[in-house]
């Protein structure tokens, strides 16, 4: 597959087909190609061949797509940034990625106006295609490099497995472009001449508008975290009649419960439900399984499936030895979809990436086991948690809390309900006494922390203590703190 050619060819084969719908804005394949070519020409002309990334800051605007393709057509990776990120977080990401340029939708519109042919040299197989930043345990975000080759392997697998109908699919885009779940809907759609239907933040905030938009979307392929679908299911009218063309639900990013899958199968008798698994470091998703009634009858905790062809997934013990079926250990992925590593961080890269039989391999830090040739995900080995599919290192939140002048020490733990993390709780030792009420203190800390971290990383509960209970080793006793909730 040649991903960029494949996308571009729709500009000739179906120039007026709609590539993207966001609110009342539409982008055709012809415009996407013309504008991304023009932007690429501008970037090549202005920056030469230094291959520095292009940062793109926006939300769901059609210009985001133009900017992504414009960057790679000038042989530069893009760094997608959503406006949900606070400025301090964006600054940190820019300091690490050192982009040639920071693009916004307005700026893209300005730079892509005059029709100009694309430069001759664009992203090659082993070039970085995008760099996606995730939470890092020390408070510094880390940039996962995904090459064109990684992405092509992922998309080729999706096409093979899902058999999308060219020029007739509409993909629901619910994840922001800074979250790699969006890569699934974005590129599967563009490569098949489909329409990407973006669900913006405003819609999610307003359920009434959200259901109306879902009803009008014409969506055939649903891509979201299970949390998002669970939220939609609260409305009884959320069923085949509301979204009549829907043929498949593709889930990734967090645990899909049997209950959610069963309710979807019941309400959407014409749709398939797929559960997928994989870290950002292995390009969106690596394993998949169709959840049907026989799977639901057999397993109370759903499997995440089998590896994509050409990639190996295995479960290892502490010594790195492959474990037998049904033995629990760390999930390791080896194959062409594995990232070459973290941008500018050979130390972090060496800690989790290695070579296995001549291929790149990644130790996920996820626990799991194989049963009946199916992989089961069983949580994390470290202090990373997932909230609504967002990956959060507790150390990241703690480091940013302690960086606030009024905080002397902080411990952050997940609040577990029904076996899953629902929110974060922060235990805080303040630097000095305060006359403010608990609520005022909490709101002040949330506000200050909100200038450093995206809203999904903010603790909802705050407990103020004079000192932390200590373990025998003199460290804050996290287990006791968590129990006190």
């Amino acid at each position, binding site marked *: 597959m040649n991903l960029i050619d494949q996308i571009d060819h729709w500009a000739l084969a179906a120039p007026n087909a709609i590539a993207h719908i966001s609110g009342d804005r539409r982008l055709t394949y012809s415009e996407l190609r013309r504008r991304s070519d023009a932007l690429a020409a501008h970037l090549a002309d202005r920056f030469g061949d230094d291959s520095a990334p292009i940062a793109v800051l926006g939300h769901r605007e059609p210009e985001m797509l133009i900017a992504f393709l414009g960057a790679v057509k000038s042989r530069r990776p893009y760094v997608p940034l959503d406006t949900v990120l606070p400025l301090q977080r964006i600054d940190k990401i820019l300091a690490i990625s050192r982009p040639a340029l920071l693009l916004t939708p307005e700026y893209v519109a300005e730079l892509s106006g005059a029709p100009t042919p694309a430069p001759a040299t664009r992203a090659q197989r082993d070039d970085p295609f995008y760099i996606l930043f995730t939470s890092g345990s020390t408070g510094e975000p880390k940039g996962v490099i995904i090459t064109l080759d990684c992405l092509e392997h992922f998309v080729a697998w999706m096409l093979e497995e899902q058999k999308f109908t060219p020029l007739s699919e509409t993909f629901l885009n619910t994840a922001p472009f800074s979250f790699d779940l969006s890569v699934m809907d974005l590129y599967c759609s563009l490569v098949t001449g489909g329409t990407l239907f973006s669900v913006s933040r405003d819609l999610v*905030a*307003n359920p*009434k508008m959200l*259901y109306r938009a879902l009803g009008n979307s014409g969506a055939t392929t649903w891509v979201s975290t299970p*949390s998002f679908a669970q939220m939609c299911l*609260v*409305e009884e009218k959320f069923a085949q009649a509301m979204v009549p063309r829907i043929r498949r639900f593709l889930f990734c990013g967090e645990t899909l419960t049997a209950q959610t899958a069963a309710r979807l199968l019941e309400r959407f008798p014409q749709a398939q439900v797929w559960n997928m698994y994989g870290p950002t470091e292995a390009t969106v998703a690596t394993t998949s399984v169709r959840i049907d009634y026989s799977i639901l009858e057999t397993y109370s905790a759903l499997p995440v499936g089998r590896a994509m062809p050409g990639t190996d997934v295995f479960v290892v013990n502490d010594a790195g030895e492959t474990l037998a079926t049904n033995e629990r250990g760390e999930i390791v992925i080896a194959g062409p979809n594995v990232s070459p590593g973290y941008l500018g961080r050979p130390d972090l890269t060496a800690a989790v990436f290695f070579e296995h039989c001549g291929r790149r391999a990644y130790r996920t830090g996820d626990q799991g086991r194989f049963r009946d040739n199916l992989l089961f995900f069983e949580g994390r080995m470290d202090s990373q948690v997932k909230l609504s599919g967002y990956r959060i290192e507790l150390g990241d939140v703690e480091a940013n809390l302690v960086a606030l002048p009024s905080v002397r020490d902080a411990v952050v733990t997940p609040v577990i309900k029904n076996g899953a993390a629902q*929110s974060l709780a922060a235990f805080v030792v303040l630097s000095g006494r305060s006359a403010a009420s608990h609520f005022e203190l909490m709101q002040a800390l949330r506000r200050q922390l909100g200038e450093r971290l995206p809203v999904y990383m903010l603790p909802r509960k705050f407990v103020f203590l004079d000192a932390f209970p200590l373990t025998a080793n003199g460290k804050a006793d996290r287990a006791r703190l968590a129990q006190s909730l």
Partner: protein
Amino acid sequence: MNASFPDKVLQLVASVAETDEVRANLDLPLYDNQLFDSIRTVELMIRIEEEFGVKISPAEFERENWGTPRKIIADLERRMQVNA
């Protein structure tokens, strides 16, 4: 409608918002203070149905009607009267 109805509602709101401040300040803007979001809104809908048997359709829901604890109580009282 018995006297403890607002208290019961506030208890649910406090549990979903994870702060007792909602009982102390009935005019606290829930969404502006990020105490409520879409997921919390539907969580409260589910809890209200369990507690009072009042079914609220998210597809017909206006966020402004639940902007503060006081507004939630008023909205639910209205719904219970219609149902009664």
